[in-house]
């Protein structure tokens, strides 16, 4: 309780207007430094990596949506429009920090070094998928890259991130957790539980809230009546900052500071990135049902990748020719990976019962044995084409 308590003698209600959360903004719409804005310290190598990973993900997303339409994978979900929110934030962290994400942060995984083949392995549920073909496409995870396997159930990772960070603190390593979620997920009870616990148990965790205007079809006006998510942090006693999520430098600068704060103070920090989900919610969704293309166009003009590119061009760190080459190269890399990895077989049927427990108990072993002898009776019916999820059965409406 640090706020100075003052006293009034007549009822006066405190209102939403009594708290203003400013927005950190460094680059203007054209990618020029705004006046009064400070360019954060960022070296060329980091800037190049950030830019390239954003460009990579834009292409991956485009290709995968197309591949989904062709029936080559059952489901996909893009990060389009939010690349700066994701790459700008992850770039402020160390590779030994744990990432606990929602599902729209494939750009952070890329930043950590996930290869095209690795993306494909998961998306295609083949034998090299770290998740052994158990989860729907986009539910990535990588122990090696300190990227926690994604769960579809919204917001569950938030209290988990607090606990993870608490463990990091006790272990004495200079490591923290970065936890991503959307403004929609922030309505779940787990958000409240996680943020309050993180604050009261002094956990070094940075919560990056992607406020992208929508939760599937639900606009923020039907998600909350407050001024976004950052003000909630003040209620928990958490240092909070709001940034222009399409401004790579703003996101990066805030994230670098947020990590520092989290580790110095052993405390959670909130970074709210204001952006827009430019694409559909997922390949199962059609946004024309609930929003106008005029609205989308406004945001398409604020493209974070283009804005960063202009800044890079200005700096002399990048050229149009390089850009052209890079994109062609990524396209090829991704399509090659798709082609090669979709030829791979499914995981082994024996994986059906592993990892439920550390060791499969007797009843599961029996169920598995029974299954195998059943399959033996109908060898043509099961595992007919073991490396393919049966996409026909996948519903179109599916989130």
């Amino acid at each position: 309780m640090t706020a100075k308590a003052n006293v009034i003698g007549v009822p006066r209600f405190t209102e939403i207007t009594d708290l203003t959360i400013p927005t950190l903004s460094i680059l203007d719409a054209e990618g020029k430094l705004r006046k009064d804005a400070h360019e954060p310290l960022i070296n060329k190598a980091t800037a190049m990596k950030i830019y390239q990973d954003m460009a990579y993900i834009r292409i991956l997303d485009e290709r995968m949506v197309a591949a989904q339409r062709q029936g080559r994978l059952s489901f996909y979900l893009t990060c389009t429009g939010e690349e700066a929110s994701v790459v700008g934030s992850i770039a402020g962290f160390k590779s030994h920090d744990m990432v606990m994400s929602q599902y729209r942060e494939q750009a952070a995984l890329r930043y950590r070094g996930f290869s095209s083949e690795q993306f494909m392995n998961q998306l295609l549920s083949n034998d090299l998928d770290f998740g052994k073909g158990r989860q729907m496409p986009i539910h990535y995870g990588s122990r090696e890259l300190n990227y926690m396997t994604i769960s579809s159930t919204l917001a569950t990772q938030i209290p988990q991130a607090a606990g993870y960070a608490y463990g990091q603190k006790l272990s004495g390593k200079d490591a923290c957790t970065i936890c991503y979620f959307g403004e929609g997920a922030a309505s779940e009870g787990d958000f409240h539980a996680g943020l309050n616990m993180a604050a009261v148990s002094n956990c070094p965790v940075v919560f990056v809230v992607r406020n992208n205007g929508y939760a599937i079809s639900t606009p923020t006006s039907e998600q909350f009546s407050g001024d976004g998510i950052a003000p909630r942090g003040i209620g928990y006693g958490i240092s909070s900052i709001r940034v222009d999520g399409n401004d790579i430098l703003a996101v990066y600068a805030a994230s670098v500071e947020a990590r520092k704060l989290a580790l110095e103070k052993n405390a959670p920090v909130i970074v709210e990135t204001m952006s827009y989900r430019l694409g559909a919610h997922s390949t199962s969704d059609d946004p024309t049902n609930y929003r106008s293309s005029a609205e989308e166009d406004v945001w398409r003009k604020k493209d974070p990748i283009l804005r960063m590119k202009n800044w890079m061009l200005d700096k002399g760190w990048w050229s149009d020719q390089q850009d052209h080459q890079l994109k062609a190269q990524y396209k090829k890399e991704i399509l090659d990976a798709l082609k090669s990895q979709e030829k791979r077989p499914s995981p082994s049927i024996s994986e059906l019962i592993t990892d439920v427990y550390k060791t499969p108990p007797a009843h599961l072993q029996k169920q598995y044995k029974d299954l195998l002898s059943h399959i033996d009776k109908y060898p043509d019916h099961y595992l007919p084409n073991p490396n393919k999820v049966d996409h026909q059965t996948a519903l179109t409406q599916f989130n």
Partner: protein
Amino acid sequence: MPQINLLQAVNSALDTAMASDQRVICLGEDIGEFGGVFRATSKLQEKYGKQRCFNTPITEQGIVGFSIGLAAQGSVAVAEIQFADYIFPAFDQIVNEAAKFRYRSGDQFSCGGLTIRTPYGGGIAGGLYHSQSPEAYFCHTPGLKVVIPSTAYQAKGLLLASIRDPDPVIFFEPKAIYRAEVGEVPDQDYEIPLGIAEVVTRGTDVTLLGWGAQMHQLHRAAKMALEDGIQCEVIDLRTLLPWDLETIVASVNKTGRLIVSHEAPRTGGFAGEIAAAIQEECFLSLESPIIRVTGMDTPFPLVFEKEYLPDYLKVYEAIKQSVNF
């Protein structure tokens, strides 16, 4: 009568309920203008206004808690949980609150006007979190009713009965057959009474019992068995809590054999309850052990969903096993 699918039948039931009773209110994630991710609430906001059909924030515990209050106040709340896999954040509100609301108050207050609709089940390449069949959790909860339709006709009639039932109802919709299951459904208002199983096919040799999407596997297996000369009596339980013991007992006393099938994992699944009750009631009639054909005791997998699920071939094998015991 028009031919519509199960999803349209759900929509028609909601439309009918809202038209016939001002107090009916629909709420849930994305159910407003968008009409729900499956479109079960399509056009309802347009017809009945934003106050009676609206999007909620993403908070299942909030949706159910809010709906309980709404029902306690005298409204008729029809809440959608986007996927049955996401009903668990609302578990406390359902199990500790809705189920016990009337009892704990000595019938001073009730939330009987509450119905929770939610799509459940596998078969759509949904993996762990878009495939679960959590009905058994709710069947262990006195105070709740649990209803699962398997046809379009049932969907409308049972949903209308659920909405108007004086007790809170969890209504699971078999999403795998939302569109595939098509049948004649009256435009008019009608109800199918809760608590009564439907004997869909008469038979003398073995009783097959199931609910929801699994009924189709049972029917298909029964057809295969018929070619072997085995006459299956196929029963659709429809209401799981309270369930129609009498009808099942009568059937098993006749056939001497019972197979129960559900998609949910075997251990602790509702087939266990049925088997336990039937061996108690029909001990001397039973000619072979009651067989459960169910999902495996693992989380719901993606690539091996076909192998995991209790399909007609597994039911068929169980029929032979039961008859040849």
